[in-house]
């Protein structure tokens, strides 16, 4: 039986879907986390604690561990564990992206430099040290611009600034965010931020799988809610995209060029692009699959999940089909409207009853502290819908969301 190491942070949304995929494939599953599981002493062959912040140490630990229990694949589920998986897989000579490529993709400044060197369309950018005077730093950028941390994901800490005053406020807010205990920024990510040219236009996300250096586009999602700042909260994703076929082809080719520029060659890719009259612009390319529970919108071939595709590829197993099912699908990441503690959720049944809605998954629990963007990092939950057209999917998601009431105090 093939043995698979899944690297699962204790706080990721991705655990259930990856564990279920591993179970379906019938592999011997080993779960690695950054903190000890309470069952680790009773199940030492399937639970292992690893220093997620130190990939080299984690690779050494797994190399020792796997002498008695050889591994066939190592898979990370988010930005942090993608780097870790590459380091471990490289050490064990298993299928992986080069460590340098994953590291570059994870650091937004390194990513920008790689793309710039390869001529991939992207915003102009400038790295700024957090100990610089923000007033002086602001004089070196053109407005509007977007300030962002080097290593956080899901729009956390991403702020638009239209003038010097807004730049200085955003600068100080990001600096404070990076000092938060739950951020755990280190190295360059704790010392710098990135200022980028604001690119107007529609935003899309591309979900892909790299196989031997070739990008296979699995889905392109429209993001129909305007993402114009000051914060960039992601809400609705709908696939297939309603953009013209020619534009979609350019989105794919630009993303493929970005992957090549970074040196990514194997495994999942999640890319964010802006599209305007000048064509597609790469905002971000991550060596991981889509975040949250959003992958549940995707099914391939005869109902295969995205996670199964990723695990099959990592194991070197055959994949019958990379074709997404034809029926349009979408997800709404339910945003946190304001800070406080969740007291109650009302209207879930009515939201779930909306035609086309498949599931209303509430992931925040009553009593939980809710932190909105740009400091926050969680969602209230996810709404999933399928319908005959992308427009109908979007309508169902909006209608379902309108039924939900969140009491926050």
């Amino acid at each position, binding site marked *: 039986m093939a043995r698979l190491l899944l690297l699962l942070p204790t706080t990721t949304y991705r655990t259930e879907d990856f564990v279920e995929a591993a179970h379906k494939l019938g592999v011997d599953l080993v779960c690695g986390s950054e903190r000890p599981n*309470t069952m680790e002493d009773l199940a030492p062959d399937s639970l292992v604690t690893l220093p997620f912040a130190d990939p080299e140490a984690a690779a050494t630990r797994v190399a020792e561990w796997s002498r008695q229990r050889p591994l066939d694949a190592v898979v990370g589920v988010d930005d942090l564990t993608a780097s870790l998986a590459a380091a471990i897989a490289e050490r064990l000579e298993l299928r992986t992206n080069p460590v340098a490529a994953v590291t570059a993709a994870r650091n937004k400044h390194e990513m920008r430099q790689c793309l710039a060197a390869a001529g991939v369309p992207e915003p102009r950018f400038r790295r700024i040290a957090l100990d610089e005077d923000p007033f002086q730093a602001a004089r070196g950028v053109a407005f509007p611009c977007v300030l962002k941390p080097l290593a956080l994901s899901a729009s956390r800490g991403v702020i638009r600034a239209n003038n010097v005053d807004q730049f200085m406020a955003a600068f100080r807010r990001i600096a404070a965010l990076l000092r938060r205990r739950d951020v755990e920024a280190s190295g360059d990510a704790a010392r710098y931020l990135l200022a980028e040219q604001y690119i107007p236009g529609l935003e899309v996300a591309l979900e892909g799988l790299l196989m031997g250096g070739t990008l296979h586009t699995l889905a392109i999602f429209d993001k129909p809610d305007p993402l114009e700042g000051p914060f960039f909260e992601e809400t609705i994703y709908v696939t297939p995209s309603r953009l013209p076929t020619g534009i979609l082809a350019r989105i794919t080719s630009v993303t493929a060029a970005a992957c090549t520029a970074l040196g990514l060659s194997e495994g999942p890719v999640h890319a964010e692009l802006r599209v305007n009259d000048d064509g597609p612009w790469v905002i971000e390319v991550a060596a991981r699959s889509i975040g949250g529970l959003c992958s549940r919108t995707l099914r391939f071939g005869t109902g295969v999940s995205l996670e199964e595709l990723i695990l099959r590829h990592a194991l070197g197993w055959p994949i019958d089909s990379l074709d997404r099912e034809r029926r349009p699908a979408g997800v709404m990441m339910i945003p946190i409207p304001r800070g406080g503690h969740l007291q109650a959720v009302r209207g879930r049944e009515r939201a779930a009853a909306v035609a086309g809605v498949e599931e209303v998954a509430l992931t925040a629990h009553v009593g939980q502290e809710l932190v909105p963007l740009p400091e926050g990092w969680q969602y209230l939950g996810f709404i999933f819908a399928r319908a005959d057209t992308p427009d109908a999917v979007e309508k169902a998601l909006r209608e379902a969301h309108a039924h939900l009431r969140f009491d926050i105090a």
Partner: protein
Amino acid sequence: MTTETPDKNADLRTKVQDLIETMINPAVAAHGGFVELIDVQDNRVYLQMGGGCQGCGAADITLKAGIERLLKEEIPEIAEVLDTTDHASGANPYYTPGKM
């Protein structure tokens, strides 16, 4: 439809309950959690998680890589362990899932 005899299911229930009481619950109690046996049918064990396990970001890891692994090792005839917990109602999960 069940294919096992009532006696066989009862025997398995007793074995599983014993492991829950003597090994599993003392372990998950470290995170304020507990596990209850709901049923055993056709060699499938139905469990419910509570306390710190209910809604925990690591609940699936605990269940599949921890509890199921242990139960299968100790009781080889067990085919699968299934979670019947309403995790959305968990009020005090040990790890709270976040974006990623």
